[in-house]
């Protein structure tokens, strides 16, 4: 059953890669053909948020149950989210180069993205600087919750209060500026689901690898 779901996820992503690049897209000013990046850049960020949400859930669960299994799930979800975030950043920078003319700019959304990456890289740093597994689990769970709450404020709340180059922000959240009625959504939603399934799969694999490594080191 799980294999079927994962296979569907890969199939959906392949669909978005092929049909997304081939189909007709609405022509919007500035964006022109680059609106196709919607299927890749935005899906990366959604998958990242999904993974960080999972990580938060397991961090809170760890603080209730104190089982190391929950800690492994939380940390691997954070690392997977980090990988997707880096992919999101790179696709975003590429998109920015061809629409705004620059690789990076001072924009609330980009600031939030950079800080999220920095905060979760610090999470990785704090994990690898503590040797005792129980102490590491507790400290990283606390930091995860703290960082996640601040991230939500900084990515979700502040950009909506300020003007931004990013479409959909500056008081108008969501994708209303795109012609998202039917033409793009046909590819976007399946791509989104596909990437989230792949993220879940990667997370699952990472957990299993970590468990095997731990068992290897114990013997």
């Amino acid at each position, binding site marked *: 059953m799980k294999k079927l779901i994962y296979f569907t996820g890969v199939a959906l992503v392949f669909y978005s890669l092929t049909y997304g690049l081939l189909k007709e897209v609405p022509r919007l000013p500035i964006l022109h053909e680059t609106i196709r990046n919607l299927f890749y850049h935005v899906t990366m960020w959604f998958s990242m948020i999904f993974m960080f949400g999972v990580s938060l859930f397991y961090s809170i669960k760890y603080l209730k149950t104190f089982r190391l299994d929950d800690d492994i799930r939380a940390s691997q979800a954070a690392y997977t989210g980090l990988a997707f975030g880096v992919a999101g950043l790179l696709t975003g920078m590429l998109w920015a180069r061809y629409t705004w003319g620059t690789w990076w700019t001072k924009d609330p959304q980009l600031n939030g993205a950079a800080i999220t990456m920095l905060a979760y890289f*610090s999470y990785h740093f704090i994990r690898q600087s503590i040797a005792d597994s129980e102490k590491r689990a507790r400290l990283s769970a606390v930091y995860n919750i703290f960082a996640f709450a601040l991230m939500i404020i900084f990515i979700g709340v502040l950009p909506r209060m300020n003007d931004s180059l990013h479409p959909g922000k500056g008081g108008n959240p969501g994708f209303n500026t795109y012609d998202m009625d039917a033409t793009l959504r046909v590819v976007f939603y399946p791509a989104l689901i596909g990437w989230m399934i792949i993220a879940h799969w990667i997370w699952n694999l990472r957990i299993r690898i970590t468990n095997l490594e731990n068992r290897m080191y114990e013997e």
Partner: protein
Amino acid sequence: MNSIYQIIKIEALQDFKNRYVLSGYLLYLVAVSYVIFLSITSEVSRPVWVALYWITLIFGSINALMKSFYKESKGLALYYHMMASPRTIILAKMIYNLFTNIVIAFINYGLFTLFLGNPFESDVRFIYVIVMGASGIACLLTFMSAISSKTDQAQTSMAILSLPLLIPLLISLVNLSLQLNMPVIRETGYIWLIPLGLNFVIFSLAVLLFPYLWTE
């Protein structure tokens, strides 16, 4: 309430006994202000002044507040553990660090005025910004000091952990400081509430999460 006051008194007496900690912080700020004074060759515009002020304050606070949880000898840590609940401890430490940092932020403002001029002239609203900024920075750094004191590399992890989370606060403070000379404040007041809101969030999150750190 009484135990919070007791712990604040202990903290204050400790800092008074080891005056080198706070005077080290002040000396750092004086030195940095003087270095900036020597490096700046022309008139400093308001955005540059504001940027330098907050950066100096943030890095100084990181250095100073790193010792907040780390400086205790084993005996005092055990004493705290037995005498007070973790909520009391974190409240007391944050309140104490908050007041210390506000005082030092004002001293830094004085230093910057001395060396680089006062871009706000007689505008006293910057005092609100200083109070909000210094208290937010202090609360966040106290909590990060609690986390990093338990790791193996306390100094580096303190800086690495706190800088990403300080950036939102920094951005909101810089924006607010630069807004002060506008004849009409745009966003009708939101921008005044953002540092206050961030402080509130940081403070409550730290108080909620600290008991999980303190179970040793």
